[in-house]
Every structure is written in C-alpha cells, then in structure tokens.
C-alpha cells in the first residue's frame, strides 16, 4: 500500500507539472460550459431543467477527456522504457495499475468539478431562472463518478496494450464511445430502442439519477466493468512474465 501512495504522488506530479494538464482542464471546461450554455439558451422558456442540460454537456465531452488522460498512462512508460525500471523494483503490479488508475481518476474529477459551478453562476447572473436542484446535482454527479470509474479503467487497460499513445487513444475512445452513443442512436435508429440495449445507455443512467430515481442496476454494471477492466490490466502487466 505504501508503494501505491508513492506511485500516486509521482503520477499526479507527472500530470500537474506539465502545461498539458492545464490546457486539458481549460479545453474541457470551455467545451462543456459552452455546450451547456448553448443548450440552455435554446431551451429558454421551456419546462426543461438546468441539471439534465449540465450532465448532457459533461457526458458529451467526457469520452474525449478520459481518452486524453488515459492514453499516456502505460503507453508512454512502455515507449520510453521506464516500465522496465519500474517493474524490476520490488513493486507489485496491482500497486502500479491502481496508482495509475487513481491518478487518472483524480485528474478527471478535477477537470469535471469546475463545470458543476457553471449553472450556479448562470442562476446568479439570470434572476429569472429557477434555482439549481442540489439533489439532482448530487444524483447526476454520483452517476458521472461511476461512469468515470468505468471509463478510466477501460482507458488504463487500452493504454497497457500498446506502446503507441495514438493507438491507445483510438482504442480507448472507441471502447468508451459505444455506451455513450446508445442514446443518440436510439433517437435515430429504431433497432436501438430495445430494452436490452437501453440498459447500457450511459445517458439514460445519468438522467435516471438526476430525476431522483436510484437504481442498483447501473451501479452494479459500472462497478463490475471497473473491477473486470482493472483485473485484466493487472494480468496484462503480469503477462510479460508468463509464457
């Protein structure tokens, strides 16, 4: 466990000591805030609440954010060869994978949290708007946290499979885009309106939680995928010592 904290500290330092982290944060904030404000502007005067628009905006940009964060995790270490130095020290594969995962997750949340302030600023600036429903915000936020657990674990695994960051990014992006795409596809193609497919729609899950309906099914789904992906990542890292 001690090694986990050492590696996590190193991971966060590696992220926040470079300008790339701040550029990523700024781009994600601008894109999400702009999408949110644009949607709210279109829906002014309708009965639509602010919270669903906020989480729609976050969900739209989240796959890209997670892809950017995760693409370098292991691919970069493999490319530079530092993985060899790291894995020939008395450090377990589990500590390495979990530290990288936790570092990526924390960075992801640090990027997302400021976006949540946008509706508050908007309400303060526009007295005509309804107040922000904090319970809806907590419900939606909890689901975004669960989704980030799941997608980041997919990103960790894809980054482990290659030494090329572009390949890692493409694999990660397409793997996590599928459940994000279920909702938009449902609205266009009737085939996707089946109950089985609907169960995998991340958008539906978030909206369910925003509306105050708590369901165990998406929680179990995201946690199971997270555990499966992290377990696979640990096994992949160990596999260099298999035959």
């Amino acid at each position, binding site marked *: 466990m001690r090694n986990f904290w*050492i590696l996590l500290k190193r991971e966060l330092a*590696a992220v926040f000591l*470079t300008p790339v982290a701040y550029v990523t944060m700024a781009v994600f904030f601008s894109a999400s805030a702009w999408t949110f404000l644009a949607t709210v502007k279109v829906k002014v005067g309708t009965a639509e609440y602010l919270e669903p628009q906020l989480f729609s905006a976050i969900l739209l940009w989240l796959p890209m954010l997670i892809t950017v964060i995760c693409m370098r995790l292991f691919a970069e270490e493999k490319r*530079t060869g*530092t993985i*060899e*130095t790291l894995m*020939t020290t*008395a*450090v377990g594969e589990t500590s390495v994978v979990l530290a990288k995962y936790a570092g990526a997750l924390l960075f992801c949340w640090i990027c997302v949290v400021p976006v949540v302030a946008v509706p508050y600023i908007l309400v303060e600036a526009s007295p005509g708007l309804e107040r922000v429903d904090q319970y809806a915000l907590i419900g939606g936020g909890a689901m975004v946290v669960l989704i980030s657990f799941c997608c980041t674990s997919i990103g960790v695994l894809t980054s482990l499979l290659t030494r090329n960051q572009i390949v890692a990014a493409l694999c990660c992006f397409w793997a996590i885009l599928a459940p994000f795409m279920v909702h938009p596809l449902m609205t266009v193609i009737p085939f996707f309106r089946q109950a089985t497919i609907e169960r995998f729609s991340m958008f539906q899950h978030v909206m369910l939680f925003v509306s105050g309906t708590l369901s165990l099914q998406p929680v179990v789904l995201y946690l199971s995928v997270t555990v499966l992906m992290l377990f696979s990542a640990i096994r992949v890292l160990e596999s260099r010592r298999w035959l």
Partner: protein
Amino acid sequence: MDKADESPVISVKNLTRRFGRVTALDGLTFEVRRGEIVGLLGPNGAGKSTTLRILSCYLAANGGEAQVGGADVFEASMDVRRRIGYLPENVPLYTDMRVHEYLQFRGALKGLRGKRLRSRIENVLQQCDLTAESRALIGRLSKGFRQRVGLADCLLHEPDCLILDEPTIGLDPNQIRHLRELIRSLAPQHTVLISTHILSEVEMICSRVLILDRGRIIASDTPEALLGLMQGDERITAEIQGPADEVAKGVSEMPGVRNLTITTDGGWNRLGFRSSRGIGVREQLFDLVADRGWRLRELGVERRHLEDVFAALTERDVVASGPGAPTMEDHHA
C-alpha cells in the same frame, strides 16, 4: 572464506527463452560468485539483454532455473528485485524529474525512508559524481550524466548484485573511464554482471568473461585465460627493403610461416604473417635479412586482444566452455 561467500550470487541452469520461432537462450548455464565482476560478451542477438532481463525478473523463461542471492527469479521475484540493482540498456529515466527528486522517488519505492534515504542519496550522488547536478532536470542532462543517474539509482538500496546492460553505450572516452573506475570500485561489496560491446573495457575491469553466441555460452574464463587460448598463434609484421619477389620467397619458405601478405611501397616491403609461437620465426627472419644484405626497419608482434578471441569464437561455430576448454589450435584443427 565461509560457505556463504562460496555460494554463487547468480546461478543459472539450462535457461531457455524463445520468442516465437527464435531461440534467444538455449540451455544457458553459468554462475557468478560474490565480489566478481563478470562481463557478458556476445554479438547482437546473442541473448545478453534477454539473460539480464530474466535475471532482473522482467521476463519469464521457457525453461531452466535462475537464482539471485539464493532466491528463485520466477518463484520469489520480489526477493530478487530487492537484492538487485538493474540498469537497463539506454537508461530509461523520468525526464521531467530532477535528479534528487528522482532518487528520492526511487529510494522510497525501494523501501528507504527518512534519514537513511537522505544519507543514501547523498552517498550515491557523491559516488557517481552527481552532487553538482542534483537539482538539474534529468531531461536536460547529457547522456553521460543520465548514465550516472541510472547507476546511482542502482546503488541506492545497496544491493548485493548489480546487473548492468551496456552501461557505457554512447559515452565519450572520459565518461567511459570514469564509469569503469566506478564499477571497479564497487567490486568488493557488490557482485556485478555487466553486458557490453566494448571488449577493451571487459579486459580492464572484469574478473571473468562469459562469451555468448546464439543463446549459449561458448567460452567462460578470466580475460587472461581467454587470451591464453590465442597464445599458440601470433601475428608478425615486418618492413624489409629488398627485391619484393625474393623477400616473399625467402619469408614464405621459413618454417612455421602462414598467411603471408606483402605490400610494396617506395622500395620497402611490408610483410604480415601468422606463425606458431615459440619456434623463433623473428630470429630466423632477422638472420635471413642479414644473410641477404637487405635492410630491416620494423619487426614486431601484434599484441592479442580479447577482441581477437571474441572474433575467433563467434565467427566460427565453436562450442567451448570453462577451464580446460579447447585452445585455438584445437579449433583450427
């Protein structure tokens, strides 16, 4: 010497590793004893780096056994990793970190903390002559300094055994000399297994040499003993002024002269030939020149280097190992 000192620090038996259809290691067997500096030599693709990667627990093997400090590299990999300091080829480092910060990070991972960590960092910085660079960004350091940072990292936790993969690659002659002295100074406390292409270096610092070819040990002995393999044969050069055809005829008729080459430049004939040691070819050549009234301005024997042994062993399909291994004459035969 007690029994613990006699037991090998590194023990490898019948180690085999295949990458698809390519056999990188083919039943490799060797031992390294405490305090030895052993050089691993071999042409590209001989299996040097694979051997070191298996010993440092980075790779698995298809078969065989490997132990470091009595711990099995496959069964007790964590124990082995605690006992070794491994410097991979090309010295991969985190270039965004400062030297001191990097050593602090690596020391913490190796279980050092508090005062001990601080004192070890101070020690290795001094030992590797890095004190002045301790606040420098690794990314801005020269290749030589990066090499020293890698070595400082290896030494941090005072491991029993150092495994260094091509530590002098890309260094300038001064840096090589410095690193050589540093490695030599480590010998009493540490056992060192070093892979390198620079044969003169092996001659200077290694107490024993293992020559690998196609995943097998083809020779294992001290540099002196390996040079002894070549002692039956020597290369003689001479410059003689006289009629070229007569010089060539006279020298080639001398007993024991082989592979004679002759080039003429401005009346001087430059001769080169091989001869069996101990039959007095140089004396005969001197007498010949005196008898014929020619002039002699150079007569010498080329000194044998490990490079010759290496070339002779790896260019021919020779299988020889350990004390009592066949000599070069046996190979010629």
